[in-house]
């Protein structure tokens, strides 16, 4: 089940909210857990037991690990073993379900080169949300291992942390220590509920009204043989995709954050106007921030960070981005995408960031946006050869097949540009701060209420209109 579906908006959500709010405070976690299991079981019946089982086992492993006594300057071996076991279990599942197919395909390719028979294997289905809940599970283990937070006292609280439906499928990746206290005790004021709902609807509108419109155009462009594409259309296509991915992902994060807020959770922000970044390094501080934090805290720093010399730092950075790319999808184009960003992160450290700083805000934003958009080509296409062909279309400056966008596309395209770069001007920043505030004045709240209502109806209408295509009469 996805948030941007009628069954979620008109059945699951209202029934959940009413059930949740009429449940006495101390039992609300059970209601939320029950609905979260239903939510997951609806979309992934084959994997719900796997997920619950993994949660239960990990809970007891980490609990046992929490009972281990450390020396003054040493960590007990048992604790290390248990921590390793927990991480290996989480990563093992991820590697198996997400990367087994990729691994076997590549292995068979190599065997093919060596004129060996390919190894037969059954394709492994991917459990939805595995990339997110694996990382959340790791943050829990590591946080407890590091002593940042004690282990959860209740199994249900821990399972809830992993399976909470607002952030189960697509994040944000919530560190255990940031919500541990909220899992045990939290309050949601009436204002939180109202503001949370506004945030949810804004996210829904970003996804349905903007991202889907951009996607329809981008899909058409990327559906044409890249060699036949006119340069102008290729550019509009990649820009449409650039906005699609931002409004899609940030919209989903908004929905998750909004739903969390309605229940009294404070989920971390995941996006902070990434396209206004002045360098690729800054972009990664604004794009999918919870993933960036995870990579920083649970991969880059354990690898040594910048503490082991410059050479090692560049290697660590590049490796982090390679792995980050692979985390996004089990395919070489994602690895390339990660390498591409890793390359510019290293370049930033070497000279690029300073150079961009010197040329002024607008040029640096434009250059960074250009680099990011070029990166999205790798993210969108299937193979390196496709990427090459698309880059050629972008820079061949030739005519060819075009995709004519309609008035709706162009209007939304302009809106997407405006919303993406709004905060470059002080007025835009002020406006955004007011819209995404935690508290509203009375007139602003009514305005937001009206806007929310309109956006909700338009989003719902958009969701059902694509399925509705009647005939005037039946003909024989």
């Amino acid at each position, binding site marked *: *089940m996805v948030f941007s*579906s*009628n*069954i979620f908006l*008109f*059945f699951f*959500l*209202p*029934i959940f*909210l*009413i059930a949740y709010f009429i449940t006495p405070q101390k039992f609300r976690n059970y209601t939320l857990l029950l609905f979260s299991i239903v939510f997951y079981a*609806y*979309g992934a*019946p*084959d994997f719900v037991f796997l997920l619950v089982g993994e949660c239960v086992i990990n809970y007891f492993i980490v609990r046992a690990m929490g009972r281990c006594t450390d020396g003054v300057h040493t960590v007990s071996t048992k604790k290390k073993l248990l921590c390793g076991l927990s991480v290996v279990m989480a990563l093992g599942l991820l590697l198996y379900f997400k990367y087994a197919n990729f691994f076997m395909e590549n292995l068979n390719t190599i065997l093919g080169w060596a004129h060996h028979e390919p190894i037969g294997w059954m394709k492994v289905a991917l459990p939805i949300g595995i990339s997110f809940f694996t990382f959340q599970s790791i943050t829990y283990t590591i946080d407890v291992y590091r002593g940042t937070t004690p282990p959860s006292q209740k199994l249900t609280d821990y399972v809830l942390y992993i399976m909470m439906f607002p952030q189960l499928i697509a994040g944000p990746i919530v560190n255990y220590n940031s919500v541990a206290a909220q899992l045990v005790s939290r309050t949601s*004021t*009436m*204002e939180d*509920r*109202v503001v949370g*709902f506004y945030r949810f609807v804004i996210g829904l509108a970003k996804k349905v009204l903007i991202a889907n419109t951009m996607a329809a155009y981008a899909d058409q462009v990327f559906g044409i043989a890249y060699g036949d594409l006119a340069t102008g259309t290729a550019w509009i296509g990649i820009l449409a995709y650039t906005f699609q991915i931002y409004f899609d992902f940030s919209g989903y994060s908004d929905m998750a954050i909004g739903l969390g807020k309605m229940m009294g959770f404070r989920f971390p922000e995941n996006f902070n106007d990434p396209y206004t970044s002045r360098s690729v390094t800054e972009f990664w501080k604004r794009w999918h921030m919870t993933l960036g934090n995870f990579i920083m805290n649970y991969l880059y720093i354990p690898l040594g960070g910048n503490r082991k010399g410059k050479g090692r730092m560049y290697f660590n950075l590049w490796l982090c981005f390679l792995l980050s790319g692979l985390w996004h999808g089990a395919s070489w184009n994602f690895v390339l995408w990660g390498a591409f960003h890793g390359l510019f992160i290293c370049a930033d450290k070497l000279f690029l960031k300073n150079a961009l700083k010197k040329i002024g805000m607008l040029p640096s934003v434009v250059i960074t946006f250009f680099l990011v958009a070029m990166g999205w080509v790798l993210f969108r296409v299937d193979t390196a050869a496709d990427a090459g062909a698309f880059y050629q279309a972008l820079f061949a400056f030739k005519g060819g097949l075009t995709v004519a966008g*309609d*008035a*709706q596309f162009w*209007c939304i395209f302009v809106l997407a540009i405006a919303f993406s770069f709004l905060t470059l001007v002080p007025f835009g920043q002020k406006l955004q701060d007011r819209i995404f505030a935690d508290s509203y004045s*009375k007139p602003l*709240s009514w305005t937001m*209420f009206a806007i*929310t*209502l309109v956006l*909700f*109806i*338009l989003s*719902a*209408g*958009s*969701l*059902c*209109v*694509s*399925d*509705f*295509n*009647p*005939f*005037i*009469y*039946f*003909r*024989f």
Partner: protein
Amino acid sequence: MGRIKVKYDLLLFVLLMVILFIPIIQEWTGVFPVKPLNGVFVPTTKPELTFENYKTNTYQAQIDKYSSENFGMREPILRLYNQYLWDVFRKTYVSKEQIVFGKDRWFYEPGSVSDHEQRLFRYFAADSTQMASMLSKEAQKLLHLQQILEAHGVHLFVCLVPAKDLIYPEYIPENHDTTYQGTPKISARFYNEDNFTRLGINHLNLEQWFLQIKDTADFALFPQTGMHWSKYAALLSADTLIRYMEHLGGINMKNLVIGPREYDEARRPDGDLEDLLNLMRPVRKPKYCYADCMTDGDPTATKPKIIVIGDSFWWTIADQLPLKEIFSRAPYWYYNNTIYYDDRYNSLDELDLAEELLSSDFVVLSYCATQQYRMNDGFTQKALKALGVKDSDAIMDSASFVEREIQRTIADILASPKSMESIREKAKQFNKTVEKAVRDDAKWIVNYKIQNGTLNWPKHDDYIAMDSATFIECEIQRTIKSLKSNPEAMQSIREKATKYNKTLDKALRDDALWVVNHKIQQGTLKWPVNNNDMNPKPESHGIQQ
């Protein structure tokens, strides 16, 4: 202040929850009256929850679709969204296959526009020759059916209903979807009109009449946002149709009395294309003209029995006319598939087609120009079969028949070395190509057979009872009679007789022979019908007074 704020937030929260719950309440109770969505669509059935369905995710996929089609308040939400799309972007999710959006908010049916641009031989676009031959064949069958029915006093005629694109081409968009581009530059509508005229099939071309009155009419002949003729134009067409029946059947029918005009927003089906958009409010356009329709109640008028086979245009007439006052019965065989306006039968399969046709006074084939490719939905074939024509596919016009005979004779000549030797000599002698000489010889042989009555006419079952010579002689005598009654023709024949030193009788016969031969060559000679079937029809089948 703090407490007021909390109360205020509580109010907003409750409001939001109520709004979120309205669809569920509506779905369970249907408490709010909502305008249903227009258009025909296949609803998704509610899936059955089984473990297998659930495990394979098929239940989830189906219930998603089902709930998307059935959640409460879907209709107003969809209309609101459509209105937003229409007002802001002039966009609609109705597919291009359903509506062409023309200039100044004029809507067209796409098939009609493509047909107008003569790009459409629907379903046969890839092979225009095949379609042309099928239409030609259909016309020949129709002519045969008309003759058979005429022999029983039943009048068959085709009503060529106008299409919007032909009457109002000025609003067709410059660059509409060009899906059909590259297909043959011929349209079934024009092809049929030619065939009907050439073969003498009774037909009433309302398109021409519409074009004549278009500029002077102070009412819309076609509604701006509908695909069918306007209700008022349909009423006037019905009046013309009745006049045509009176002329064809030589009868007097009740006159239509059309009431005073009133102007109003579109009434169904005048906005049928617009209805499909499912908007909150109507598209901006002038008001349409409407009027009530009665008859003059003439007690001496004839109330014929008619059968109408046709497309949806007839609805607009049938819904407005006092059918029972004008006709003894007027069943409507919609696309020759479903019966309407007939209490006797529920389905076409129940009735005896021959009995039904022969007991009628008029058989009307009423198809819109854009539906001409449908070839009457198989009615002609079915009717011929019901009337005893065993192989209606064998029906052909005289020109096609003569050509077939010529080809057969050519084949015989080519197979005979002796004949070929003689023809080669003739070709040399008259300075012709061998091919031309062969064809000329074959043509001479066929003509000789026709004149001598030794040619076997195509076997249209038992409907042809004369040999070719007798038939030709009959035709010649009929033509002589016709020429004699024409003073201008007689004057011309007299001049020819003097000029060529012939007797008047010889000149008259030669002229008649030429006319008959010409008809044979053109394929417009009507085949003879079996004498047995020319008997007057039984009294019970007569027109009711």
